[in-house]
């Protein structure tokens, strides 16, 4: 040990036991750390700030001298709002989320409950089924695009909301079940027993006893799945065949075609869909970060 203070002493005496010189060094190191962190954060935020700034400039200013911030106007926004049907995009995306997320969570919960709490004559089958449902985590959506298109046509749902709702539900099941089975494994068996002794049916047991206690998981999955559907693009671009079904993501992908070289209006459109999303994020930031990273972060 190079220093005279042992870790044990430090623990007893707290910070005070650290000699003055290291403490000073520590503080100056914190200043450096803070400076680096501020700089990194600024660099990461810069692209967002940049398009917000440019969205107020005229098209010619963007091309000739983008750094002049003297003549800012709302003209781009007027142009964007009068051309884009933002309301339609939002409505469609909302309908898709409403049609797929709750149902996906509900059926995932039911299957998870059966596979982690209920009694199987063959234990092996129960375990195998659990793995079978989790296997979907390894499937990238891109391998599904063409077959799902064929199935949609076959089932006669192509050209309707269902053409997207059905695959959105299917791809959500594995992740939903990963979280549900994880939490159900620790569910107190005494509570279940008590409910059964009281004469609860399977439905009452799930609806009145188990699901209420799963509320944190349900909230996490609501956030995670809603963000997924909101941002989803590959299925939308493959399966949507008419303008009246355009989602937010699909609408954004058409900006470059719609605006061509009207960069000002393009940036205003970008900001118009970006800002609501960032506002929602700012309000529910803690829950969203927890929900998004739920699969990767334990504890």
């Amino acid at each position, binding site marked *: 040990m190079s220093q005279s203070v042992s870790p044990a002493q430090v*623990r007893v005496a707290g910070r005070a036991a650290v000699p003055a010189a290291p403490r000073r060094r520590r503080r100056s190191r*914190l200043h450096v750390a803070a400076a680096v962190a501020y700089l990194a954060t600024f660099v990461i935020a810069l692209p967002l700030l940049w398009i917000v700034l440019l969205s107020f400039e005229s098209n010619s200013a963007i091309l000739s001298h983008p750094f002049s911030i003297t003549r800012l106007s709302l003209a781009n926004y007027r142009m964007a709002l009068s051309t884009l049907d933002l309301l339609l995009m939002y409505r469609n995306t909302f309908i898709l989320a409403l049609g797929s997320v709750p149902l996906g969570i509900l059926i995932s919960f039911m299957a998870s409950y059966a596979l982690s709490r209920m009694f199987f004559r063959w234990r092996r089958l129960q375990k195998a089924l659990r793995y079978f449902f989790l296997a979907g985590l390894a499937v990238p959506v891109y391998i599904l695009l063409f*077959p799902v298109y064929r199935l949609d046509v076959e089932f006669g749902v192509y050209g309707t909301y269902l053409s997207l709702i059905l695959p959105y539900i299917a791809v959500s*099941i594995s992740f939903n079940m990963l979280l549900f089975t994880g939490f159900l494994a620790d569910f107190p068996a005494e509570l279940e027993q008590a409910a059964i002794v009281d004469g609860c049916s399977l439905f009452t047991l799930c609806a009145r006893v188990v699901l209420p206690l799963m509320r944190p998981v349900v909230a996490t999955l609501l956030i995670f799945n809603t963000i997924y559907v909101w941002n989803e693009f590959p299925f939308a671009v493959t399966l949507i065949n008419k303008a009246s079904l355009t989602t937010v993501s699909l609408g954004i992908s058409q900006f470059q075609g719609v605006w061509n070289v009207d960069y000002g209006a393009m940036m205003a459109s970008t900001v118009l869909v970006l800002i609501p999303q960032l506002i929602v994020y700012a309000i529910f930031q803690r829950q969203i970060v927890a929900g998004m990273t739920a699969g*990767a972060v334990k504890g």
Partner: protein
Amino acid sequence: MRALSKKWQLVIMIGPAAIFYLSYLMLPVALSVYYSFTNYSGLGSPGSAGVSNYRQLAHDPLFWSSLRNTGIILGIALVVLLPCAFLLAVLLSQQIRGAGAMRALIFAPAIVAPILVGLIWVFILDPKIGLINAVLGAVGLPQPEWIGGTTLTPYAVGFVFVWEQIGFMLTIFYAGLRLLDREVLEASALDSRNRWQELRHVVIPMLQESFGIVTLLIITGVLRIFELVYELTGGGPVHLSDVLVTYMYYLTFTLQQYGYGMALAVVICVLGVGGSILYLQLGRRRRREPVR
């Protein structure tokens, strides 16, 4: 519980999920594999093509260039994203004013739709209207074609991927750092000569699990990049900037060579699963070696 686990009850509980899962996930996977052995072009019934699609893929220069581009992005993600996310997590776990707000801000790109991320970066990287070249031009430096040229696009996409993912990866490291044993850290702070040594010999070994998760997410995430390339270049010029997924999309939905496209889709899936398994195996072997 046994009384409530009659066969019909189990069927009702598992049935709905099973129907969706089988019909819209497992069946499509099986169909893709099946189509990949046919020359299906949308009309009539698919004729058997054996492994000819896969053989054709091996001789397709655009397949190799899209594989190379994907590899470049993976390389950038491993060399830039992984260490930067870790170091930022270490920085932001210090007692810095506003660390929480900064973490939230850095995470923000992860919740923005990937297609919007692509569009935002068009305004930064575009050779004509982009911010970077405007700055370079203002100070009289050459203005390279970050996107749309023949060489730089995959690198540019790699850095956009870093931007998009860094907050997410940072959060995983941050969660890992918070779980570290305070006492061990304080002891090592006095023990090791400097901060770098402490990071290398104490913190990083203790965060092995976080590093593993982040690496796996990078491998699978890079193989899922689609929107960024779609928005930044559309694969152009002449598909030289395509990554595996955008090239597959072009083959399948633009050229309507469904059999060929699905063969590539199967290859991408195998690369993802295989890469993850390989990495897990390597990690297991390394962990078995004694830690010095």
